[in-house]
């Protein structure tokens, strides 16, 4: 047997054990899948029943329609991220964890890794499945596209990546606030409330600032043809979204490393 010592790989394995034995976490992952698939199918049926006419046909985006559930699933992914850390603070388990891993940060990185990996692992296949289901529904009205069309695979994979990063935002906020309610509220504020406030700004300004907000920036990668007036280019937007997560995780790391557990 190898020597006893704490390593990042071992802590990550420990965090995986925790995630797979925490029913709340498994429910969050399951609800992400259900939201992606069920809402995508529902919305595709709705749009197939009322197909676009005239000028609206050109701007109709069948990929976004079938992936509409991603915007709901980001709540499940974000809440999972919050819960992974705040459930430990709520029960006091964090002290047992950090006494075993006194450098502390391996615990945060381990949680981030298993969170991102598990979200991608369940939402990636779900996104592919709902894309195919949605296209077959929309195809009856000759509105569908195929996976081979430009940008389509990127949008589907991007949906899973977007959800993983939304989860990391939740993890960072939960670590900073050490409270489930606080973490979830902050997450909702960041993803939903701030865009509403910015929407009240005068016309051009709202669009210009709006596309740099985390949700809008990140969702650019899930869209085949993002509108340049209201959205960044796909990977640029995703990069901005990742930058938000990186900054918040950095602050979370400082908060966790310093001072009292």
């Amino acid at each position, binding site marked *: *047997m*190898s*020597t*006893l*010592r*704490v*390593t990042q790989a*071992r*802590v990550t*394995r*420990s*965090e995986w*054990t*925790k995630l797979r*034995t*925490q*029913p*709340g976490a498994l429910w969050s992952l399951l609800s992400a899948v259900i939201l992606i698939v069920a809402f995508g199918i529902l919305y595709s049926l709705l749009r197939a029943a009322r197909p676009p006419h005239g000028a609206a046909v050109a701007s109709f985006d069948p990929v976004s329609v079938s992936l509409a559930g991603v915007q709901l699933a980001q709540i499940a992914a974000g809440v999972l991220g919050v819960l992974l850390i705040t*459930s*430990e603070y709520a*029960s*006091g*388990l964090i*002290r*047992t*964890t*950090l*006494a*075993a*891993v*006194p*450098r502390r940060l391996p615990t945060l990185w381990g949680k981030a890794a298993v969170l991102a990996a598990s979200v991608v692992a369940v939402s990636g296949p779900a996104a592919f499945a709902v894309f195919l289901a949605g296209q077959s529904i929309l195809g009856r009205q000759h509105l569908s596209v195929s996976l081979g069309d430009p940008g389509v695979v990127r949008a589907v994979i991007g949906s899973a990546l977007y959800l993983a990063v939304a989860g990391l935002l939740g993890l960072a906020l939960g670590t900073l606030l050490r409270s489930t309610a606080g973490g979830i509220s902050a997450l909702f504020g960041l993803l939903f409330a701030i865009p509403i406030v910015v929407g009240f700004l005068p016309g051009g300004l709202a669009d210009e600032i709006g596309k740099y907000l985390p949700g809008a920036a990140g969702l650019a990668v899930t869209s085949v043809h993002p509108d340049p007036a209201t959205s960044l280019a796909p990977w640029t937007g995703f990069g901005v979204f990742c930058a938000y997560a990186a900054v918040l995780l950095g602050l979370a790391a400082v908060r966790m490393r*310093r*001072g*009292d*557990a």
Partner: protein
Amino acid sequence: MIEIHELTKRYGPTTAVSDLTFTVRPGTVTGFLGPNGAGKSTTMRMILGLDEPTSGSVTVNGRPPRAHAAPLHEVGGMLDPRAVHPSRSAYHHLLALAQTTGLRRSRVEEVIDAAGLHDVAGRPAGTFSLGMAQRLGIAAALLGDPATVVLDEPVNGLDVEGIRWMRGLLGELAAQGKTVFVSSHLMSEIAQTATHLIVIGKGRLIADTSVAEFIASAAPASVRVRSSDQAALAVMLRSPDVTVTAAAGDGALLVSGLPAERIGAIAAEAGIAVAELSTLETSLEDAFVDLTRDAVEYRAVTAKEEK
């Protein structure tokens, strides 16, 4: 071995631990005694590397607690037996902990058996009674076979059988040469478990002594006397080393500083008839309360004190 040197911890304006210096040695069970709010848990959190000292230092087995490569193998701690994820099984709780350090699965099963949790290891830890939760906490503390074990109130909430088990276990760990540091707010509990004693109150060190010495020094027996001439006897007994007070109610004298035989002899010489002569044992709890009276954070204020 735990070495604590001029340790101070402040939370904002509150000083939880103040200038504490003591050493906990291997091979014995050391009790850590103090009233609620005395700073015991704060000190233990610093020993486990969870809280940062404001000043001063803590070392465990010669190094700061956060400097160990395999902390579970150096110091095992139990702070709060309810600090588990309520829906995760006891087995997976311990497995996740073991995995951080590369401990084998077989070690998880060993401590489960040692703690008597074999039949309930698959149950969610949130369904455990307090006694079972304590056993799970002990299992977690022993998981890495640590040289130093730190347990906060381990006997709290255990039934008689559990208390006996715990005492046996602590003695066994000490016999293996481990450093065993156990807190309690009950003197009687500690007296039966520990051989050495650290007493703190209001975050300050009050005593660092063996349990036997502490009992001897802190519990001077007093003697209750009723006689035919209380006033004369009181004058004869009183000296700089002897205090004589009147007991409430029946006018008996309470004498401390003289053994009963001596009091009887003095009365006999003076021709005073003794009607009652009895030694009152100060209980351990009383001794502890006396010692920490000034250091109790929260105390019920009696009607007299309020005036």
